[in-house]
């Protein structure tokens, strides 16, 4: 016999909260929206102003210098394929979103990660929030993004930043906490201030770990940016989305392969950065 327990209106509360935010802070959200959109346009235009072969050459050169000749050749082959498939412009749009979302995520994540590493209280506060951010299905972030920032790229970046930020915070915290205790003691013993200790000892020593976190953030950002096509973000994701709607598996796979190529390039590139930093 079912007892009639009233349903907790959790969803209503959340909606109420979001409504409150959108109606009262629309100036803020609109401001953020406009600034972000401007950034997106600038970066997009800059990347598209370059001829395809020009950008290809720049990326390939970077890959070669940082990751070796194999990565350089891989970049040329991969990008040439994307160009050939006619996915160059969506690829640029996706790249722009990833770059901007990652930058925003890092700018927020580093100070938060450092603060959580230095304060046990903050650590206890932030870690559950990170768990929440990471386990919440990614799509859910898209829904409130629309009332805040409208349909399109800015909402995509908002959702992407939230989804991709946790690893950068986690790894930064981990990296700083892993600095051996005796090195901290040495820094203290010579009379370092807190900021001297942070910038001369803790951060340099945690750099490889922080870079691993940034690598993870980039990968998550890429996956989210593709999903964000559902709220109207342009790019490779919207090519996949179109293919789904028209039931064209061939086109869908083509766009999907372009995403994979972009992901591999970004991953190998950031990992090589990490290794060269370590080897120095």
């Amino acid at each position, binding site marked *: 016999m079912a007892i009639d327990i009233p349903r907790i209106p959790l969803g209503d509360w959340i909606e109420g909260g979001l409504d409150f935010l959108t109606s009262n802070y629309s100036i803020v959200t609109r401001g953020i929206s406009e600034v972000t959109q401007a950034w997106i346009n600038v970066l997009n235009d800059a990347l598209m102003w370059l001829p395809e072969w020009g950008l290809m050459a720049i990326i390939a050169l970077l890959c070669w210098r940082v990751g070796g000749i194999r990565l350089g050749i891989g970049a040329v082959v991969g990008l040439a394929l994307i160009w050939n498939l006619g996915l160059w412009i969506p690829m640029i749009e996706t790249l722009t979103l990833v770059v901007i979302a990652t930058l925003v995520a890092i700018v927020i994540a580093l100070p938060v990660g450092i603060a959580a590493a230095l304060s046990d209280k903050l650590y206890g506060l932030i870690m559950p929030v990170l768990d929440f951010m990471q386990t919440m299905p990614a799509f859910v972030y898209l829904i409130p993004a629309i009332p805040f920032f409208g349909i399109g790229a800015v909402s995509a970046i908002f959702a992407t930043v939230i989804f991709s930020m946790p690893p950068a915070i986690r790894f930064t915290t981990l990296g700083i906490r892993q600095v*051996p205790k*005796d*090195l901290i*003691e*040495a*820094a*203290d*013993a010579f009379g370092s201030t807190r900021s001297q200790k942070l910038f001369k*000892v803790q951060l*340099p020593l945690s750099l490889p770990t922080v870079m691993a976190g940034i690598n993870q953030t980039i990968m998550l950002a890429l996956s989210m940016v593709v999903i964000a096509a559902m709220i109207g973000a342009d790019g490779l994701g919207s090519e996949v989305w179109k293919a789904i709607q028209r039931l064209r598996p061939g086109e869908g796979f083509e766009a999907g392969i372009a995403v994979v190529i972009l992901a591999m390039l970004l991953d190998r590139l950031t990992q090589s950065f990490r290794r060269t930093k370590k080897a120095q």
Partner: protein
Amino acid sequence: MSETQQTKIQVRGLSKVFGNQPKKGLELRDQGLTRSQIHEKTGQTLGLSNITFDVMEGELLVIMGLSGSGKSTLIRCLNRLIEPTEGDIVIDGENIPKLSDKELLECRRRHFSMVFQHFALFPHRSVQLNAEYGLEIRGVDKAERAQKAREALKQVGLDGWEDSLPSQLSGGMQQRVGLARALANDSTVLLMDEAFSALDPLIRKDMQQELLELQSRMKKTTIFITHDLDEAINIADRIILLKDGEIVQSGTPEEILTHPADDYVARFVESVDMSRILSARHAMRPVRATARDDDGPRTVLHKLSENGLDSIYVTDRERRLLGLIEVDAADQAARDGKQNLDGLIHNDFPRVGPDEPLHNLFAMFCDKSYPIAVVDDDQRLLGVVVKGAVLAELAEAGAH
């Protein structure tokens, strides 16, 4: 050690309780409870209890104890890497536990440099930049700190390694970098926390010698922590022995070895090779009879037979040792009617200073059957060491 010494650091009634109710721990201690009783009752660990000692300007003070004796806590309380619970630590008029954070920073920069057991070098910095660290954070300008760091590296024999990374160096060399980092800082006190304990025995001996050499040049006030009595004996001007967070004994190495305060110290002492520590002074006996250089052969013969000797030392009026006369030679000279000792005195016997380690005396006994004469710097005869006395002294010291 001979010049008049000034007190550099005064430690008075220093205690440290680890736990969340440190005052409670101290209260119980004052009621006479032991360390383990306090721990059982309250969960508080009494790390240091009522430590009082002075550190003299320019001395090398060794704080020794087994693990858990509180020696690492003690050295860290001095520069407040660990906050003391109560007590005073006064250095040049400043009471360290009372300093504000800012003053503490200043105090650490000016007074303390530390050398760590596991080196604690910054792996991302070159040897040069490691040595510069202390100066860098004090805001010393680039050229000056580079210069000072290079000098410090040179002092520890690392010139030419400036651009290497610590990971490219052997353990011994890494600790030289640690030492250079501390020396470059030009602080007034050097804290060495088991600085050589992670090194293998041969390198360790070398480093001890080098520290002594540096010390003889620089006369830097040094507090050295170790669990190794051999090391302590080797380098210390003075030793403080710590057990269960309390001072058991303090004194010169010799005082501790010859008069251990209790069983704990005695057990420590047993592990030391006494023959390296004790010197001729300890095994020396007074000379029963001596001849004077203006005695005649008959007087000498009389003194020999009176004391049952077959040879006798000859001294001048100031008791300066001139040599030895054998009973045969004296007898012959008396029969020949000689009036003085000319040509009878020989110097074919060993003589040593009072500080000669007993260890070195064994070899001398092997060559000759003569006893060993102990003389001071002016060749005055202080006493004599016979083989049996050396062994007796060693046996006695070991049995303490």
